[in-house]
Each structure stands twice: as C-alpha cells, then as structure tokens.
C-alpha cells in the first residue's frame, strides 16, 4: 500500500521540533483528512485548528511545503502533484504567533486591524430603524471584499511582512479598509484610508503572493492600488501626498540595501516605478496623466535598482 510521509513542525510553547508520520495513502482525500488520521490513529497530542470543514470559517490554514492553504478544501493529491513528492511538510502559518503545533493566535492581528476602523461609519441618510438604500452596483463594489474569511493566508504569504517590522498592515487589513472606504453606506472613507497609508500602504511590493493564494480570490493588490489612489487624492487636498511619496521612495531604497537576497523576488515593477516616477508622480497625478502604480517588468538585483535610482535622479534633473 502506498504510504504518505508527513513531517509536522511541532511546538509545545517552549521548544520546537520536526516530527515524522506515515499514514496509508487514500485517493481523493483532503489535507484535513490526513491531519485527522494522524491525530486519531497515531498521535492525539497533535494540535491544529479546523471548524466548518468547508472553507468558510477560515480557521484551518497551514503551510504545506511552504505554500499556505486551507487544509479542509485542499486535496492531498493536488499537493503531492504540485510538489512532485511523497513527503509533505506541514508548518504553522508565517507571521503569526504560534500557540501550539499548527494553531496560531489571532488577537494581535485584530488589535492591528482596529487601526483602520474596521466598522461601518454610517452616512446620514441611513437609520437604525430603516437601514439604507444601496444600489445593486454599489453592493457589487463590496461583494468580493466581504468574502474575506480572515484565514490569514495572505499574511502568511506576504513578502513585505517577511522583511517588515510588523507595522505594515496585513493584506486582509487593507482589504477591510478598502471594503469600508468604498461602501456607499459609509461616510468616512478617510477614516479607513488614512490609517492604511499611515501604516505603510506604500510598502506593498505588488508581488501578488497574497492574491494568488487567497482562497476567496480577492484582488488584494488591486485594492491596495485603489487605496493608494484614494490616499493620493486625499493627500493632495491635505498636502500630505508628497510626504508619502517621499517616504515610499526612501524606504524602497533602504529595503534594497537591507535585504539583497529578497530582491530577485521583490524587485519587481514597483521599484522601477518608485525610481522613475515617484519623485514627480504628484505633479502627474494632478493632471491625471499617470498611474504611478502600474506594473513594470522585474529588475534584477540591487545593482539594477541603484542604477534606476540614479537614472531617476538624472530624469529629475533634466526635467526641472
């Protein structure tokens, strides 16, 4: 009988170790099934979270061979095929505090989420007695964003969080900010957008890791772009946009120096965008001529980045 080899990263609150398990392979089973088998047949000390078993409660995400998935709706076969292996490695999500084994704590994330005022700030036309009128098209604007199940996969996969000191908001928090900022029943977009850009909205690398792994297919980077646009517009009236653009420019430069190994993945279009366009982005924004966030081709290595910065300075000089 075909065997399935599974290594699980264990943690008991003090020490951490890898433990190997072997179970009989069965066709068409989910990853959750494998965890349940291990726990019920081999080792009842194993801890993992799951509740609904059908992809709606968001409690069961873990990393499998580095890729974060909801275990309840991920077929084992898809993982075995993807990684072309008969050994799977289960680990808790990245960028979360681990409680025990594969279970993580959410409270710190919720404290962080509070920064964007993640609740409806109702327009005056609405009342508790009669609710609101909202067009079907306006509902469509929030429909996808409100699919978020707070599973944390986007956080676990986020490249900015990998290097960030923790200030950068988790992608699902940007989603929350966006969801209220565009809700026609909400009167205070700024109260959601402003804290987003105060908390490093501009540091998103547009690497798309969050989007491509989100089980609800939420267009997180699209939302981040939209938030940036909103923040630019708000910044203009408040004369803060320039400050943010500048911060973005400097930070990108620093990140490049700080973490060279991450660059091949991360030095994508944004660095180029930063280098070439941000210094004068505001001027162009005013005339609505450019989108400072459009994706460019990747740049290889820090060298390329620095060249770009130099080039940008040149451009700047020649333009002024």
């Amino acid at each position, binding site marked *: 009988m075909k065997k399935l080899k599974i290594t699980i990263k264990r943690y008991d609150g003090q020490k951490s170790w890898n433990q190997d398990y072997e179970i009989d392979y069965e066709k068409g089973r989910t990853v959750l099934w494998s965890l349940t088998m291990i726990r019920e047949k081999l080792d009842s000390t194993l801890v993992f979270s799951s509740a*609904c078993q*059908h992809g709606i409660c968001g409690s069961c995400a873990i990393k499998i061979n580095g890729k974060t998935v909801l275990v309840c709706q991920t077929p084992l076969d898809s993982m075995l095929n993807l990684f072309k292996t008969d050994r799977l490695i289960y680990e808790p999500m990245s960028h979360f505090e681990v409680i025990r084994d594969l279970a993580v704590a959410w409270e710190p994330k919720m404290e962080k989420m509070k920064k964007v005022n993640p609740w409806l700030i109702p327009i005056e036309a609405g009342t508790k007695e009669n609710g609101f009128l909202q067009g079907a098209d306006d*509902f469509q604007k929030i429909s996808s964003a409100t699919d978020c199940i707070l599973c944390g996969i986007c956080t676990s996969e986020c490249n900015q969080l990998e290097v960030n000191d923790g200030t950068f908001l988790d992608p699902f928090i940007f989603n929350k900010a966006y969801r209220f900022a565009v809700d026609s029943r909400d009167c205070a977009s700024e109260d959601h957008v402003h804290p987003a850009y105060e908390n490093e909205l501009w540091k998103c690398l547009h690497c798309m890791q969050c989007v491509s792994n989100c089980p609800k297919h939420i267009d997180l980077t699209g939302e981040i772009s939209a938030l940036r646009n909103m923040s630019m517009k708000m910044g203009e009236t408040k004369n803060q946009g320039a400050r943010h653009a500048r911060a973005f420019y400097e930070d990108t430069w620093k990140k490049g120096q700080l973490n060279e190994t991450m660059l091949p993945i991360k030095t994508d279009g944004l660095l180029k965008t930063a280098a070439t366009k941000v210094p004068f982005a505001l001027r162009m924004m005013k005339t609505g001529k450019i989108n400072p966030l459009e994706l460019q081709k990747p740049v290889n290595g820090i060298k390329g980045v620095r060249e770009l910065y130099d080039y940008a300075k040149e451009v700047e000089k020649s333009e002024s």
Partner: protein
Amino acid sequence: MMKYDVVVVGAGGAGMQAALNASYGSSLKIAVLSKIFPTRSHTGAAQGGINAALGYRDATDSIEKHFKDTVKGSDFLADQDAVQFFTENMPKIISELDYMGVPFSRDQNGHIAQRPFGGASSPRTCYSADKTGHVILHSLYEQCLQQGIHFYDDWFLLSLVVKDNELEGLVAMDMRKGEIQAIQAKAVVIATGGFGRVFWSRTTNAINMTGDGTAACFNAGIPLKDPEFVQFHPTGLASTGVLVSEACRGEGGYLLNKDGERFMKRYAPDKMELGPRDLVARSIETEIKEGRGFGEGMNSYVLMDLRHLGKERIMQRLPQVRELALNFEGVDIIHEPVPVRPSCHYMMGGISVSDYKTLATSVHGIHAVGECCCVSIHGANRLGGNSVADVVLFGKYAGLGARQTAENREFGSIEKLEEEQNKWIEKFKMMRKKTAGIKFFEIRDKMAEAMWYHVGIFRVGSEIEQALATLDEAIEEYKDAYIGDSSERYNMAFINYVELGNLLKLAKAVTIGALNRKESRGSHSRGDFTQRDDKNYLKHTLVYYDEGRFRLDYAPVMITSYQPEERKY
C-alpha cells in the same frame, strides 16, 4: 476570582448580538467567552439567508404570512405567542443589521433583495449572495470591536454553578494556558450553538458543534425541550455531508432520481423541490430505500440538477455552492448535476427557555439563546432562513434580558464556585496522567453510528431502544476513556474528551425524547407511528437530568390564533 456582571458564552450570531445589546449605553462589565475565535463560529456557515416579511419582492407578503408559514412548518409544535413576537420584530432587525454594515444583496430599487425559500408562501429570505451568515457574523464582530467588547478566545465553558436555583457563576478553561478559572457572574447568556455532532461525521455542522452550553444547563437542572426534533438537511454533498445551500432549490434546482424523474412530484406536487426540509429529506430517503437512488447502501444518493439555470445565474447567485461542489465532489454544477443526500443539520430542541422576551430559563440568572436553546419558534421543524433570524433577533433580547437581570442581582457567594473549580482542576490532572483506557474517538464513533442508524431520519421503537442500550454502554465506557495527551497547554484532546461527555448526554436525551414520542410530527418520523397525534402529543417534551437520572415530562404548546390542521404542501 474573575468577576463580570454579564458573561456571554459563545461568539456566534446569538452571542455577539447579546453582548452588543447588553453593552449599548450601559456601564456593566461584560465578557464573551468562546472556545474558538469568534468569526469561526458556525453562524458563518449559513449560506441561504434570513427571513423577514419586508415585502420588497412580494408586496403581498406580511407578518401574518410569515407567522403562518412558521407555525405550519413547525407542524404546530411552535409556541405561537413567541412566533408572533419573532415575525413582528424581524423587519426591524434586518434594518439594524443593514445599519451595522451587513452587505446585503440589493434589488433594482436599492432595497434588500429577497429570494424564495422552502416552506415560505412568499419570497422573503434576505440574502447576501450565498454567504449570508458569513457577512452577518463578520459585521457583528466588527461592531463588537468598535464597541470594545471583551473577548476571551479559546476559553471553554466547563460548567455552570447554581445554588438554590440561583446562578453564582461558571467554571471555564483558558485553553492556551491550560488553566481552569471560576468566574463570578450576575447573569450568563448561553449561546453555544447546536449539537449536530451527536451524528459525528453525518452532519453539516462544524466539528465543534458539541452542545457544551446545552449540556452545562442540563447538568445545572434546566430541562431540555423537544430534543428529539432533529432536522436533516435534504441536500448534503453525497460523499462528505457538506451542505449544499437550500438556495439551490430556491433558485430552481431539480432533484432527480436514477430514472431522471423529478420525484418531488410524488410527495409535494405543488411546491415540488420547494417543499419543507423534512419532507424533502424523507422523500429523498424514500427514493433511495425504494431503489430509485444511485449508488449502494451508505453511499446512495440522488442528483441535484442546476444546469438549466445557466452559467451566468449560477455564477452570480450560487458562486460558493459551485466552489463547494468543485472542491469536495469534483463536479462543476454548470455542466453536471451534483450527487446529494440528507445530513443532520439543525437541532430544533435545546435548553428550555421560559420567557421568550428575555430568554430567561428556569434558573435565575441564566439566559439561553440561539441554536443551543428552544424558545420554541421552530417546533418540530425549522424553516430555512428562520434560524439566523432567530439568532440575531433573540440574541438582541437575550442581551437586553441579561442586562436587566444583572442590574437587579447581586453577586452570589464563591464557595461553591471554588469547589467546582477544584473538581475540574483535579479532573484535568487525572486525565493528563492517565496512560491507558478506552480511546475516546472510538466511543464517539460508537455513539454516532447508533444515532445515525437508529435515531436518524426514519425511527422505529425497537431500534430506538437499541440505540439507547448502545448509548448506555458508551456512557459506561466513557468513564474509562483515555485522552493520550499529558500537556497542560492547549490540550485539545482533553477539550474533545469533555465535548464527547456532553454529546453522550445530549444524544441520550434525543433518544429518550424520540422513544417516547409515539407519533410522527415534523422532523420526527416514526415508522411504527406514522401519523401526527394531536390528542396525545401536541405538547413539548421536557427532559430533566436530576442527580444522574434522566426524567421525562411534558409541557403544553401555546396556541393563539392558528389551530392545528393537516400539514400539506
């Protein structure tokens, strides 16, 4: 010792509504305990929607019609005064949810959209695509964040402490630390959800739906009302039991047997697939029993066909259903029919509530709300879309009721609380040390099997008795159960062990109720008593737990304006 004016146990729709409404404009100290992170609660799994007679889609709809549908759906076992209160107040609650930011789907006039649902004479089910419970749960959570509600996540209610019929507080485990705490409280709201897991894997319920709060109240001397009424959802996915929303039938899905026939014409010629759940579930099982299903034995099924709705409508109205079928059954409903069969879905019975306006129980200080309790507005059978409605509406009144209770009560004494706390500390120690015995997973499977085969969709006296015997055996074995985890921190094996103890007790209450109700009514279908018997059984079952013994009693049903008649669809 920890001390709160109001402790809400459970952070689903009912618990969070209670916490919010107890806290608005009050200075009471309130805490919410939940064994899982709030947004994981099973309210989030409700796909189809929430009922309120708003009349946007159908101007002829009315409170009266919602009332009649609910009472008729309940097979006349619902308390009509409570149903009146419920249907009257639902439209207001929908507005309140809207005002909290719940993203409802909208009609062309900007009003909240409504869809037809099983057992409803007008399309009155408000929805948000097919994620209604999910968006309500998350909106309530957002409101709690704004309101600064204090959550204790990963805290597990172990027991309630009551002296002379007065609440003193509760004992709970801080699961992450493995610490057992006593909490003094003036009022407690139990909102711990259903206990579909008595059927273990044959249910649409989340893995944690184990009825802990229901069992805690039961232990504390509050009776269970109508526990024998278990709703089986007609359309679970055939291989996993995962629910396919009733919205599929609402949107016009067909049920087909192996001859390709829309067999519902035999059972509900007018309503067809839109007949109430119990009827559709039994119809499917009858088709299977009589050899017109696909597959064999435990793996039998019928088909649900949605292809005629077209891709666009499916993508727009049923996107989650499509994904479910893809992930769990490997079927794209745009191109193929999906195999379905009934699964245990909802518990009509639960902690007996004695006042539907405050959700108070027979013990002073304890309120109960949501699926864990029985008001009763669902009677022998709940209508689709009436449960999330129940949860948010009565959640509100439970919060207000608990607040009133807390304002009028003093803290009790702490001796009994400490005693109870120590009892649990000892038990936890003992279970962690124990290295041999019967594996509790095995006891669980034994219970579930007995329940599914003998106290399931079709019931017969002799078989129910068999189940009772098996349950007694399992309860005996439980005393020698062994958990296999000695750690203090986040000991899920211990938690699951306690949950199983609760399930066993509740399973036995279901079985006793089922055995003694010698009639067929709503979801309770007896092969040996096939007719409804109003003369003898138009009454609520009450099961008590006194000093280790189960005791049976009955209580009258409140009938106001709608006299029982034959239930035909």
